[in-house]
């Protein structure tokens, strides 16, 4: 099984340490996207940024993502199978809100406890998940009318 880990623009060393300690690199075909190269260099395949992240998304069977909304919504819109890991080490805890949203709607799995990460990867392939439907934004005309009226 191919597993992609994507951390977006904010380092998340605790998540990478959990992956390393739990031997995920040995059990699966793992690729890590991390904004800090030093953190990710311990894994057999890693990169900092990609101009074509969608190709990596398509490559993976399971995607482990930080709980940044941009990454989550894009992945859900493309119907990928995801494990969301909220970064609770940050000063602000707002990633918990979208993590709860994903879990409550069963759009993906959510790993609140990093000790459970490898167990969650094992069940991600067969877990029952719901598809996400985006409600398109229709407020552009409101913006133009407000500025130029």
């Amino acid at each position, binding site marked *: 099984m191919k597993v992609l880990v994507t951390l977006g623009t904010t380092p998340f060393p605790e998540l990478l340490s959990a992956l390393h300690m739990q031997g995920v690199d040995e059990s699966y075909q793992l690729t890590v996207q991390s904004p800090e190269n030093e953190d990710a260099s311990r894994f057999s395949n890693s990169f900092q940024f990609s101009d074509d992240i969608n190709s990596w998304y398509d490559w993976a069977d399971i995607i482990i993502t930080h709980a*940044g909304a941009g990454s989550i919504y894009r992945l859900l819109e493309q119907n990928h199978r995801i494990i969301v890991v909220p970064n609770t080490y940050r*000063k602000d805890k707002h990633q918990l*809100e979208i993590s709860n949203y994903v879990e409550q709607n069963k759009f993906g799995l959510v790993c609140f406890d990093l000790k459970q990460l490898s167990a969650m990867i094992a069940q991600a392939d067969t877990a029952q998940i719901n598809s996400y439907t985006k409600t*398109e934004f229709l407020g552009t005309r409101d*913006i133009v009318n407000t500025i*130029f009226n």
Partner: protein
Amino acid sequence: MKKKAVILSYGKGGHQEQMQRLVVTLQSELPKDTDIIVMTDSKTVITTEKKILASFHYSEARDKHSTTKTLLGLPKLIVTQFLDSISLNRQFEIVGIISTGPGVSIIPSMLCKLFGKKVIAFESWSRFYHSSLTGKVLYKVSDLFFIQNKTLQTIYPKAIYRGRL
């Protein structure tokens, strides 16, 4: 004659993603004589068919791991943004500002309000149950405030929901 411009203010990551999605639909709706000015804490700039007249890069208003770093960095950010905003108003005819957060948008939005320009703001799409600090401030100064999750309507009664970017 001064060139007309709307300021787009956004942070990196998901904030930039929201602005990028908005610009895709907004750029064709903007008048031909109105271009764009970018104020961001992202190292990359959104792509748009519109002309970007100027682009300003700032440090993040809020350090993700340290309150001390946040407090130490704020005075410089406030002064720099204040001076840039004054300069922009002299150079261009600013018609308004659109913000998708976070803190990098607060000072430019407040100054736009002070100068009588229109302020449009979005609460982050990651917010479902609680307002963000930036959202709280921009809700008070904005002419139009969008929420992207209906669950926030009780917190922001005057905000409007038009779907999600």
